[in-house]
């Protein structure tokens, strides 16, 4: 038996940042490991420059995700005006920045997932310095606002964190949550469910017994927040028909 902290993430728009260089800011299909660490870190009130606290959190948890619906991709064309860099001037408001004579336009294209719904199961590692209860409390009453990968993508549901005990990881990820709309069938209709779900997990590949488990190596294990460095990690995934008894 293993203990899991299970919660649900939903919002009309989400952006699970992948490796991004320059103006292209792609999104993954499901929350990355670094995104979940960031979300929990924000809930706990860990500041971005607090490397040791971030590292402690990172070493404490294993993350598994169930992508419940396919979600769709949109690309946002984004322009920003910024004044040329000048060491002598620190602008104290946006209005003052825009009053500079020379303004440059920065272009970027940012990707989002629309109509996404994910269930997250967090478990503790052997060297965990934090308890699932602490994480649960922090999600209920967070210190910083939570978001789905980008600050402009708020959560559109209470995440309803709960601590569950299961033999199998899949059972934790199949935890039933209340319907978002009037019924689970209606949820499936508006969120475009195709009755296929995908499980993503780290650690033991055999946590799900199936012949088509795929192992990938995403770059989403944070190395250093300040330098914005990530390394690869091993992740297993399995796409399957949603079990008949769990209707989304």
């Amino acid at each position, binding site marked *: 038996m293993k203990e899991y902290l299970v919660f649900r993430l939903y919002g009309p728009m989400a952006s699970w940042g992948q490796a991004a260089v320059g103006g292209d800011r792609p999104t993954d299909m499901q929350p990355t490991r670094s995104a979940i660490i960031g979300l929990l870190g924000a809930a706990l009130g860990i500041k971005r420059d607090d490397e040791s606290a971030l590292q402690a959190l990172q070493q404490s948890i294993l993350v598994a995700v169930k992508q419940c619906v396919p979600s769709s991709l*949109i690309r946002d064309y984004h322009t920003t005006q910024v004044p040329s860099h000048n060491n002598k001037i620190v602008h104290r408001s946006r209005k*003052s920045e825009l009053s500079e004579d020379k303004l440059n336009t920065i272009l970027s294209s940012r990707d989002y997932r629309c109509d996404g719904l994910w269930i997250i199961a967090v478990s503790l590692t052997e060297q965990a310095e934090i308890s699932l209860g602490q994480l649960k409390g922090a999600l209920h009453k967070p210190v910083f606002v*939570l978001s789905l990968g980008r600050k*402009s993508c708020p959560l559109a549901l209470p995440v309803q964190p709960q601590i569950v005990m299961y033999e199998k990881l899949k059972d934790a990820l199949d935890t039933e949550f209340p319907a978002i709309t009037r019924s689970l069938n209606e949820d499936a209709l508006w969120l475009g469910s195709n009755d296929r779900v995908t499980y993503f997990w780290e650690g033991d590949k055999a946590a799900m017994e199936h012949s088509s488990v795929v192992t990938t190596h995403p770059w989403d294990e944070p190395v250093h927040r300040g330098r914005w460095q990530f390394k690869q990690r091993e992740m297993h995934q399995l796409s399957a028909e949603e079990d008949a008894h769990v209707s989304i």
Partner: protein
Amino acid sequence: MSQFIQLHILTSYAPSNLNRDDLGRPKTAKMGGFDRLRVSSQSLKRNWRVSELFEQAMSGHIGIRTKRFGVSVFDALIKAGVKEKSAKEWATSIAGVFGKSKKDALEIEQLAHISPAEQDAAMTLAAVLAAEDRAPTQEELNLLKADQTAVDIALFGRMLASSPAFNVEASCQVAHALSVHSVVVEDDYFTAVDDLNDGKEDAGSAHIGESGFAAALFYSNICINKTQLVENLDGDENLANKAIQALTEAAVKVAPKGKQNSFASRAYASYVLAEKGEQQPRSLSVAFLKPVNDEDHANAAINALTTQVDNFDKVYGACADSRYAINAIAGEGTFTELLEFVAQ
């Protein structure tokens, strides 16, 4: 945990093109599988930040307007026993932070607003320089202007890759505004006539073009982390309250300016629900997952929103401690009371 203030806003815009993509067409997103009109959070924030409201929210915190600040610093250094030549040099570099130094003088060329916090920081730095008998470093000079943060930066944050010392974590979250109903972006085929063409030889137009537009009732969601905002403003709760009120007023009254001259689409919010509490903030967009499709759009949207608030509370427990709403369709509540509520 923190104190959160959430705003849920419904605003109706007549046909317009508030926020454009790379093709000049209105931005869209999908929600509930249907296309929705969208105004990006960046567009909303930019229009609020550059509005007069934020400057007004800062008034009273702006300090003195002077060219002669260097003289005060010089006097302080001389009083602390610094040699005249060094005092002049150091005072000039400190004053130079706030404006361009005049040649061979302590004054700067323009009038500069120097906040009380900046004056304090400059005088503290002068005392350190006098005690250690050395010139200020570039970093010390840079920090002089970082001490007081404007309300817009305290709310929306700032990231400067080149000088992280000035980074500020945003205390306010602004969602992309999405229409509560499905939209089809329409195309306006237009021609422009040349006034000096009398049409005798060539009756054609001087310019033809196409412009996308759509009308929508938008739901927008804003969440302010008051605890963090107060921290960003160095503990000044009074200023934080002014900032929250300024943001509320901007969000309710300031419209995105895209294609404003073609569509004159300025609008005030029709319905605003403000919520306060320490619970995990959540947007109410799910109320519109099923697109609103009703002859009376505005009331249908308000009903969907208020039902969603109740249903969330029923299923998950109270999602906020207190609430206040204004409804400009039914004429309920007042904006003044809303401003009082958010700043209490």
